[in-house]
């Protein structure tokens, strides 16, 4: 690309990205604006930058068009384009320009904006193991890897080209130059992966708004962790008085009623870790969201014990987010705070409303562990 325009272009991209950065809070709030499309490309419609002028108001204006139809005929969407005039160079489009961001770029912006530290490598856990894959063909190699079909094809090609091929007596003898061998490449497969275990309180006191907050926040947490780990698994647990594992869809849409026993969720989480995620090769991130209204002080004590003895030693970080709700007492976070005052790998955050998500993500991911 010619370099002059490159400068202008990257300048423009910077501004666009700056725009995204400034409005990041807004994006985080409107989680629905971000859709995953295809594998990992998402499209955020960002208006192209429009320098303001003294200009006519849009809808009053109307204009002259060309085509069939009686008065009253509706012009289809996209048929009307104000500002169609103006040659290149004086263009001033009023139309949205799509800025494609991959999830990686988005995570990068998120990281930059929230000043999140990259997650530190955990020594052995982030080792990758080499894997051999046969992926190509070479013309040298050990006989044991000779590619029979390719070799004969090559020989056939040579004999036809040199005119020695006789269709009536199709005998082909490969020479040294015809021989083809399989070749391999060594790829690094991450040996260790990360798993996020989301737990959510779905008791009667958690309303739609609270769940929306959880959903948005978990999207951004996902995005960030995914950019730090090659493979990321997610598991979902919902609980009221009892806990069970569910799929993503159910996780965000279930509404149960009844009491709250948080220990049930932590117990299930512990079992899950024991069964599927060997501490040696997995980075484990449990996130728990609740309105902080536990059933009894006894259960809270049980929670603390469970966390202290079973969960915390095995995970990179345990995070608890308390969503404010009109019903909850919000006691739980205070209890946790008391119990884990100085514990390194516990992150606690109170999320009063959607605006607080921003700060909360920082609380959770700001430690870089």
């Amino acid at each position, binding site marked *: 690309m010619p370099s002059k325009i490159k400068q202008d272009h990257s300048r423009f991209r910077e501004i666009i990205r700056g725009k995204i950065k400034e409005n990041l809070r807004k994006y985080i709030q409107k989680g629905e604006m971000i859709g995953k499309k295809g594998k990992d490309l998402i499209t955020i419609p960002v208006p192209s930058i429009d320098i303001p002028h003294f200009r006519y108001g849009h809808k009053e204006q109307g204009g002259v068009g060309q085509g069939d139809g009686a*008065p009253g005929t*509706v012009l289809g969407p996209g048929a009307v384009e104000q500002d169609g005039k103006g040659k290149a160079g004086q263009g001033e489009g009023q139309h949205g320009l799509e800025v494609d961001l991959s999830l990686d770029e988005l995570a990068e912006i998120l990281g930059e904006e929230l000043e999140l530290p990259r997650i530190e490598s955990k020594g052995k856990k982030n080792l990758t193991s080499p894997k051999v894959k046969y992926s190509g063909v070479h013309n040298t190699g050990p006989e044991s890897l000779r590619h029979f079909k390719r070799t004969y094809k090559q020989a056939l090609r040579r004999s036809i080209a040199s005119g020695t091929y006789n269709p009536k007596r199709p005998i082909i003898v490969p020479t040294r130059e015809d021989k083809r061998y399989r070749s391999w490449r060594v790829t690094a497969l991450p040996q260790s992966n990360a798993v996020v275990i989301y737990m959510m309180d779905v008791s009667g006191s958690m309303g739609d708004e609270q769940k929306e907050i959880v959903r948005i926040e978990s999207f951004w947490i996902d995005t960030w962790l995914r950019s730090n780990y090659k493979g990321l698994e997610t598991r979902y647990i919902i609980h009221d008085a009892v806990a069970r594992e569910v799929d993503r869809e159910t996780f965000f849409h279930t509404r149960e009623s009844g009491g709250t026993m948080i220990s049930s969720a932590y117990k299930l989480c512990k079992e899950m870790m024991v069964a599927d995620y060997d501490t040696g090769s997995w980075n484990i991130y449990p996130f728990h969201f609740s309105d902080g209204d536990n059933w009894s002080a006894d259960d809270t004590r049980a929670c603390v014990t469970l966390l202290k003895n079973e969960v915390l030693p095995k995970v990179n970080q345990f995070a608890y987010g308390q969503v404010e709700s009109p019903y909850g007492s919000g006691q739980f976070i205070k209890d946790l705070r008391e119990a884990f005052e100085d514990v390194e790998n516990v992150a606690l955050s109170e999320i009063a409303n959607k605006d607080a998500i921003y700060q909360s993500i920082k609380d959770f991911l700001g430690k870089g562990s």
Partner: protein
Amino acid sequence: MNENKDTRLPPHLHDIQREVEGYARAFGLDFYETIFEVLGYDEVNMVAAYGGFPNRYPHWRFGMEYEQLSKGYEYGLSKIYEMVINNNPSYAYLLESNMDVDQKLVMAHVYGHVDFFKHNFSFAHTNRKMMDEMANHATRVRRIIDRVGIEPVESFIDRTLSLENLIYQHAPHFAPKVRKDPGAPEERIEVRGFKYDREYMSGFINPRAFLDEQRKKLEDERAKSKKFPEKPERDVLLFLLDHAPLERWEADIVSVVRDEAYYFAPQGQTKIMNEGWASFWHSTIMTTRALKDSEIIDYADHHSGTMGTRPGVINPYKLGIELWRHIEDRWNRGRFGKEYDECDDLRARRAWDKKTGLGRKKIFEVRKHYNDITFIDEFLTAEFAAEQKLFVYGFNEKGNRWEILDREFQKVKQKLLQQLTNFGQPIIEVVDGNFENRGELLLAHRHDGVDLRVDYAKDTLGNLQALWRRPVGIVTRVDGKGVLMRFDGRDHTDRKVDF
């Protein structure tokens, strides 16, 4: 542009160029020497992003333009066929990957444009060495950036661009104003009555009342000339250059932006004529001379692509070419003048053919002396509007949608002309540079039935204020009521006024 690459025409295109140029001259087109360059799509996009000039000052909006063009091309949505610069010699760009038949078409089209640039009166005062001028602008701005830094310069350019449409498009056709020296001492007002040579007659020849009247007249005139500006000034950028407390580099940038705005303005004033004229000639040259049998399908495909219309948009290529053909046809058959205009017999009108054969002569004349407004005003006839199915559309607030409103000729024509008035820009002028005797700048919007977009107007005021330093305001009408919008550098205020 790319020093490593030979952008000259390859031999076979060179031959095509010679051939097409020959046809164009034989038809009577008269153009500057035209240099064709062959570029890859990425370079074409770049040059197009720069408005056709390989050298422009650095600014992100060119990057934005480039991104839009590149995306359009990469997703197969749009492709730039033709680009030509009003310059002597003219430069035109061909897309490397086009078929030869396209290149032929583009060349024929380009010769139409260059002929138009050379002869249409709107371009008479444009700088024909703009290629060099743009490069100079680029150097000037780069130097300023080296000195002041990219951030302040870019922000200042943004602000200035926000005002770039506040020029007076017709200004180049007038002699420059004589500027008065503001420090010159005021002359005493002396009222001279009629001459008389007998002293005793003076009271009769110049009675007291008459002298007073004369004195008042002179005083009024003096007061008027003290007004600042004397007459409302349409060229707001010029006014700022002359009177705003700009730093030197800031003034430099304002004048760069203003020069370029004036250079591009005639292209906006003649869009329909110019594209129509070029299309008329590519169509004429291709179909009567240059096309080979094997090329007809591709030609027809691409020509019709250019001429395609959508209901809510006027395609200047289509409207232009049809109007040129319409004019040629009318003058070929003598469908003009008193006799024709007064003929009420529809059948006679339809069959009217005096075999005058003046069509070609007429269109060459028209391409010299008209711009889009006068072109439409004079030559868009009721027959033509019906034939081309023109209509007026508007926004239906209830249905929240755009609808066809009317097909009546007068309304169509009026709307079209209104759209073209001041070339689609609201008319705004400086009325007072010392508003309320506080050094504030007051603009007025000559309201012609359509309100300004208020949020934009406020942001624009913000930019204006940054240049003027003192508070600025604009009087306009919003929803039928006069409003003075004012910005003092911190807050926006609206005040009701009679306007």
